[in-house]
């Protein structure tokens, strides 16, 4: 198992490097002259030059990249052009909010998706299964931001039960969590269903039944645990996608998280902020994937017990 984990860790590091280079290059290539943008139209040449010097924008790209990376390693992500506050502070201030939202959405998707998938599989081709299939299809087809708007329409405007935006008490998180979690509930349902179906057709489940084990033992103890393995992988990937979609949800519901931070930064061409946020997002995703891989190694003894 150790070799497995080490190998995954090395891949993660390589991925992160490639990621950082990509981001770095992308920003520099497409961004135009940041100093000019910052100084604003009609600024004097020396102001622009001063800004350029201050922000180190005149050095060669490799030099910039090098200082950027060494900064990242020491946790220094630069200062936001716009806010004037260190990127790191902005990021970590808003991170907990995004995590809260992601967690809430994950809970929604797990609570809905996995049991629904199990029921669909156990009662294959029944009414439950048909409903499950429809739900899975809709989950892919309904954009989560549209769902968010509809929820807002229903619960805030027509029923008046929930507030439309911002962060406050528990009521504020319900709609964003539902909108965000819906898509993943659908894909978890699909995966759980197919994984369960495959496991339930296996020989060892047949033997477990032939042993006269009660049905709940067959399904929960044996079938589900085996079916869980591929589902776990998806959970990790899901989290990644959630970070994506969260941007729009956060914007709609004015949720003070990383997504809305990023959006604002992009609109205002705030390079250090964009850079920093995207790097951190990438770091998080790679980190989560690594953790999922390690979890996987623990759950499946076939991996745990090899070198």
């Amino acid at each position, binding site marked *: 198992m150790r070799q497995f984990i080490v190998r995954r860790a090395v*891949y993660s590091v390589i991925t992160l490097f490639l990621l950082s280079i990509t981001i770095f290059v992308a920003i520099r290539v497409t961004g135009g002259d940041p100093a000019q943008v910052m100084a604003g139209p009609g600024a004097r040449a020396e102001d622009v030059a001063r800004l350029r010097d201050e922000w180190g924008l005149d050095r060669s790209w490799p030099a910039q990249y090098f200082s950027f990376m060494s900064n990242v390693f020491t946790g220094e992500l630069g200062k936001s052009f716009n806010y004037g506050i260190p990127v790191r502070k902005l990021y970590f201030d808003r991170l907990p909010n995004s995590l809260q939202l992601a967690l809430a959405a994950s809970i929604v998707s797990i609570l809905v998706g996995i049991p629904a998938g199990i029921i669909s599989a156990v009662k294959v081709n029944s009414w439950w299964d048909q409903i499950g299939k429809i739900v899975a299809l809709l989950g*892919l087809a309904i954009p989560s931001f549209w769902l968010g708007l509809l929820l807002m329409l229903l619960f805030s*405007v*027509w029923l008046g039960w929930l507030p439309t935006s911002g962060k406050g008490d528990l009521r504020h998180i319900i709609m964003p969590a539902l909108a965000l979690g819906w898509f993943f509930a659908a894909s978890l349902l699909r995966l759980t269903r197919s994984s369960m179906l495959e496991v339930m057709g296996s020989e060892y489940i047949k033997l477990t039944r032939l042993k006269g084990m009660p049905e709940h033992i067959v399904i929960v103890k044996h079938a589900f645990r085996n079916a869980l393995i591929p589902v776990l992988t998806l959970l990790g990937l899901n989290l990644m996608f959630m970070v994506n*979609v969260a941007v729009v949800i956060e914007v709609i519901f004015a949720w003070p998280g990383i997504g809305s931070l990023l959006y604002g930064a992009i609109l205002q061409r705030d390079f250090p902020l964009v850079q920093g946020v*995207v790097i951190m997002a990438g770091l998080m995703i790679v980190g989560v994937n690594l953790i999922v891989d390690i979890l996987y190694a623990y759950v499946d003894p076939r991996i745990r017990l090899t070198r």
Partner: protein
Amino acid sequence: MATIPAVSIANIARVAGALRQRAKLLQGAPLLAVFILTVLVVAAIFADLLAPHHPEIPVKGAKILAPPFWMEGGSASTPLGTDYQGRDVLSRIIFGTRVSLIVGITGTLVAGSIGAILGITAGYLGKWFDQVIMRVTDAWMAMPALIFAIFLAAMLGPSMWNIVIALGVVYWTNYARLIRGEVLSLREREFVKLAEVAGASKLRIMVRHILPNVMSTIMVLASLTVGVVIIAEAALSFLGLGVPPPQPAWGLMLAEARATLIVGKWWLTVFPGLCIVLVVLASQLFGDWLRVRMDPQLRNR
């Protein structure tokens, strides 16, 4: 002179035969999905003939924010209502089909092409190429796709083709992975070995032999991911990073609808969104059917 009619008849017979063969391929296709897709394509192509009003000009004599015709205050000339500028919602939706379909299809084409090139190269040339391309793919996949797309769209500037490029550049990774896998197994097949032994250049093998055989995989994946690209485009338009107004796009309509959502003008949100759902649903169903259809065929080949 007498040979000319003979030749034409032979040609016509051949084309008719080929068409019939193509039509047979579509047997058993999910009718609803095909119907929806056809309607949408027709709407996109003939938008200016079908739409009752001009999508960007407020309708003369119509109220602003008029509701759909079956509600009080609605009118049959603007059956789905009007927006905050008094423009006809139905017309805007019909024209919006153009943006969604064009961006969806071309974006998928770009993504598919990039993915196919990289996938075939990695799968066939192997070793060093494979390692590098796969690492890059992994890194690319670690980037949150939508965020990357948002970022690129913002950098490139709002225009339809920039969006297409941005989306294509972001979504190629699935293709690359899948195709590489296919190519890895194709590589060992006899007709490839035969071409290698016959001295064909690697490029020629990749283009003439490998590519046609992965076509069906590409097509299946394409029809399944068109939906993703369309939703991504809608998200970009929603965030104001898509095609610039006043050209109608469904995502843009949703963004414009936000302000009035609070006061209950639901039709501005529901109808455009419904269209998105329909097109994605239809392409998903079609793609699922296509995948099932293609699979046993592949084995029989």
